[in-house]
């Protein structure tokens, strides 16, 4: 496996220059390989979501360097950040964050539409196949507001994989679901990890799910406390 992501001494502070300046990440070093399936765990307020946002190029680090597939990321170039997000990253959020004005299949094809790619013919067939893979082929034309929480999360997973990104960042993808649905969603993530050779970094509070990942990174008070390969795998 080759290197996918490298974080070097990532620091993040909020309220810089004010009396309430707070550093929430204190120099994170992290390397992820391609096709890796890793869990990011830690107590609330440990900086998991902030780290995920920095990796997802949604917010800049205060200090440190980040490179993706060997290329250094320049946070000041908004255009490159947008292109990198579109080309290499997929997102799955806790509250699915689908677009309610669009149907399930339209949500899945949205990344293609944003990138000016075709959304008919083969592209549509591919989107249908993705929805079929998450068990939602029959509901593909339904508005997302008509779907259950579990179904919405499956649509979100299909959308994240729409452009076959190198890395999917999942922020508590099962945090809002019951145990059985959580298991199903987790199985789906695992399946796509293998089928699409996509790496996953999953933020979770659920020790059961973390235990099923290949690698577990634990964040405590803005530092990596432990980073271990799961002996069970």
């Amino acid at each position, binding site marked *: 496996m080759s290197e996918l992501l490298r974080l070097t001494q990532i620091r993040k502070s909020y309220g810089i220059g004010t009396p309430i300046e707070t550093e929430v990440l204190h120099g994170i070093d992290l390397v992820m390989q391609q096709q890796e399936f890793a869990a990011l765990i830690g107590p609330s307020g440990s900086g998991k*979501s902030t780290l995920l*946002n920095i990796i*997802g190029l*949604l*917010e800049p680090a205060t200090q440190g360097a980040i490179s993706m597939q060997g290329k250094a990321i320049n946070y000041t170039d*908004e*255009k490159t950040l*947008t*292109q990198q*997000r*579109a*080309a290499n990253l*997929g*997102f799955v*959020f806790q509250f699915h*964050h*689908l*677009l*309610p*004005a*669009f149907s399930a299949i339209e949500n899945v094809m*949205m*990344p293609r*539409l*944003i*990138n*000016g790619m075709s959304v008919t013919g083969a592209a549509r067939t591919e989107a249908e196949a993705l929805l079929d893979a998450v068990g939602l082929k029959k509901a593909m034309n339904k508005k997302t507001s008509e779907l259950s929480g579990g179904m919405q999360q499956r649509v979100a997973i299909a*959308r994240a994989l729409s452009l076959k990104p190198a890395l999917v960042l999942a922020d508590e993808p099962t945090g809002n679901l019951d145990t059985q649905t959580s298991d199903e969603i987790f199985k789906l993530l695992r399946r796509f990890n293998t089928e699409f050779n996509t790496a996953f970094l999953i933020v979770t509070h659920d020790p059961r799910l973390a235990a099923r990942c290949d690698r577990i990174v634990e964040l405590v008070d803005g530092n990596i406390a432990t980073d271990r390969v799961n002996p069970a795998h």
Partner: protein
Amino acid sequence: MKFEFTLAWRFLREGRFQSALIIIGVAVGVAVVIYISALILGLQANTINRTLGAQAHIVIKPLDETVRNVLPPGTTLATIQPKAQRLRSVDNWQVLMPALAADPDVVAVSPMASGAAIAIRGEANRAIVLFGVELDRYDRIVELSTKLTRGSFRLNAGEVMIGTELAKDLGVDVGDRLRVLTTTANDQFQISGIVDLGSRDLNRRALYLPMRTAQNLLGIPGGATNIDIRVRDIFSADGVAKRLQSVGLVNAESWMQTNGQLLNALQAQGVSTTIIRVFVSIVVMLGIASVLVVSVVQKRKEIGILRAIGASRGQMTRVFLLQGALVGFVGSTLGGMLAALLVAAFSALVTNSAGQPLFQIEIEPSLLISSCLIATVCGTLAAVAPALRASKLDPAQAIRV
């Protein structure tokens, strides 16, 4: 642009009630602008037509005769009595005519021999003005043929056409005869036609006759007291008159000089219409902007998601600009239809005693097209601030909310 257009349309469709309200707002605003513009244009055209119906846009006259001081320089006179202006011909008017006609702004040129006279029929007599014209040329100046109410539009030797009020005052009609008396001659004529010049005063005084006959009656054989001119753009008459005056020893007087008050009234109307247009446009723009600002707040999360999954700032800006443009375009199209209904209602309800519309109002296609274009541009401009706000949303923060 497919992404931007799809999203803009869906966002508008999703907020149906909100979108419908603002589109209705734009439609009403645009309808008011189109209706008022059409009404004022119709009113102005009607006023100009009635007032200038029988008047040339520019009249070329000989220069006024003045008293010359023949005393040695430096001699001061207590009073200089103004010289009485006798009836005179424009110098070299035959040479001047083609030169005037060659001006690119001039549409038609017509010579005239005009002066005061008295019309007599039996015991009735009236002070009149003789208009000695070459009928074909003169018709191109004031479209006299369209003003004929009775008889024939012709001026053979011994024939005259008179105004409707003069006919009434003298108790004459087509085919009757009347006598015309000037300070130097008198003659009898048969009435070939009766014309309505749109002004009671003109109708009471006007008598049209062949130019040669008028020259003889007025004692200016071969002369033309003035040259009438019609210009391409009625409101350019003043400028054209000044230009024509500078080329020769003549007096060029435009309708704008002789009808100063009318011009002021027309200009005041024009300014009022512009003010109404500007304020309605501002209100429409504020309406669109406020709805889109609310939309940006409501769609905060969606904007964040779209930015996270690869939409650029530029794309988000364009989504909201397009929404503004769509609201402007759809609203103005409906507004155009509403304005057409209002005009139809005005024409049907506001009528004269004969049941005819008080005056003709028409919505020019150019007015409709320009209103649609302006409303679309205004909608786009109104969306600039909300669009920039949307593009500046931090995706991480928007998603967190």
